[in-house]
């Protein structure tokens, strides 16, 4: 241990730490646990496949929200895309932090929302919704640096979708003007939300990649190929041939250790 570390009380480890081993022994222990890690990843994929086979709930009622430009319908929240995820965040009088801040848990969640260009590229919109007026939402977004669309709930939307007393993510799909609710995640399920993959995995269509176990006819494209830089999706309507080449070479390389491990 260096003197710097010894001088730093925060750098001291708690007493009951696991043993320090050789790199080889550590790697062996890691490989052992990796079997469980992989199984968990696959079971998450299987769960997402089950979500895609859920029946859909028809949304018959007309909901109205306040947006930055005035009144909007649930359909408008899709912004023309096929799918919509709405997170109900608590920001209103009576919530701890009001009026300066939204609920701490909801704020932590808002901080981990990844760049939405990737989600949007899969024809899916993310929106936040709260009870507070738009003027407060606008101020909050500016203060905290949040960029997602954020609407004001004006009717029974929160009660009807299980988010009147507690936070939660509702997923919707539309066909023209017809809207269906397709999934709902709340409680601790919300803590894993934020990445492009977590959002896509809760939608009816999933990541829309060919490897996924989805019902017949669902839109799917090859994995990696649709990925782009967040500032470049608009410029490229179809995958750049060079990227297709590079991603294929990359995949061929990283799959090699797997092959060796199985042999």
């Amino acid at each position: 241990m260096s003197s710097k570390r010894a001088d730093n009380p925060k750098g001291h480890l708690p007493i009951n730490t696991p043993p320090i081993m050789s790199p080889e022994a550590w790697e062996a222990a890691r490989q052992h646990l990796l079997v469980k890690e992989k199984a968990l990843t696959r079971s998450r994929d299987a769960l997402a496949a089950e979500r895609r086979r859920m029946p859909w709930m028809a949304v018959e009622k007309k909901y109205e929200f306040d947006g930055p430009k005035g009144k909007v319908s649930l359909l408008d929240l899709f912004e023309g895309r096929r799918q919509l995820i709405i997170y109900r965040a608590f920001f209103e009088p009576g919530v701890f932090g009001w009026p300066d801040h939204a609920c701490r848990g909801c704020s932590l969640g808002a901080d981990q929302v990844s760049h939405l260009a990737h989600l949007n590229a899969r024809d899916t919109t993310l929106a936040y919704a709260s009870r507070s007026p738009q003027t407060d939402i606008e101020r909050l977004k500016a203060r905290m640096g949040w960029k997602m669309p954020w609407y004001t709930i004006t009717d029974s939307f929160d009660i009807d979708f299980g988010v009147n007393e507690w936070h939660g993510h509702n997923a919707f799909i539309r066909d023209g003007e017809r809207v269906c609710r397709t999934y709902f995640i709340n409680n601790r399920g919300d803590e894993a939300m934020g990445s492009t993959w977590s959002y896509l995995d809760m939608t009816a269509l999933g990541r829309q990649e060919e490897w996924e176990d989805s019902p017949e006819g669902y839109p799917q494209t090859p994995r990696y190929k649709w990925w782009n830089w967040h500032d470049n999706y608009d410029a490229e309507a179809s995958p750049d041939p060079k990227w297709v080449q590079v991603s294929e070479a990359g995949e061929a390389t990283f799959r090699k250790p797997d092959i060796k491990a199985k042999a």
Partner: protein
Amino acid sequence: MKDIMRDELGAPKIVDRSSFQAELDALRVREKAHTREGDAIAAARRLLPMVEVDGTMQLIGERGAVALLDAFEERRMLIAYYSMWHTGKPAPEQCEGCTWVATCWSRLRHRVMR
């Protein structure tokens, strides 16, 4: 606009609120089990042995050379992600593939201190 539900998606079953809730409740049992399995694996990670790393290993940071130990910024733990970068080339000429794909290698190359 074409009817995606009927023409493309093989007409998924559209149900009322109570049937939807019943299906949701049934799947929620699996969701919860998955969450708990994730917690159990995280607990097993905390029991993994550690491997000692040379803290004086040099890295180049924004303000010049630093030791690996400095990368902790005085905190107890450090997570290092290995992102591939071609020295001297501007961002648009960096390999997109490596940036994504390197996720698989980073854990092998860095003996991240726990």
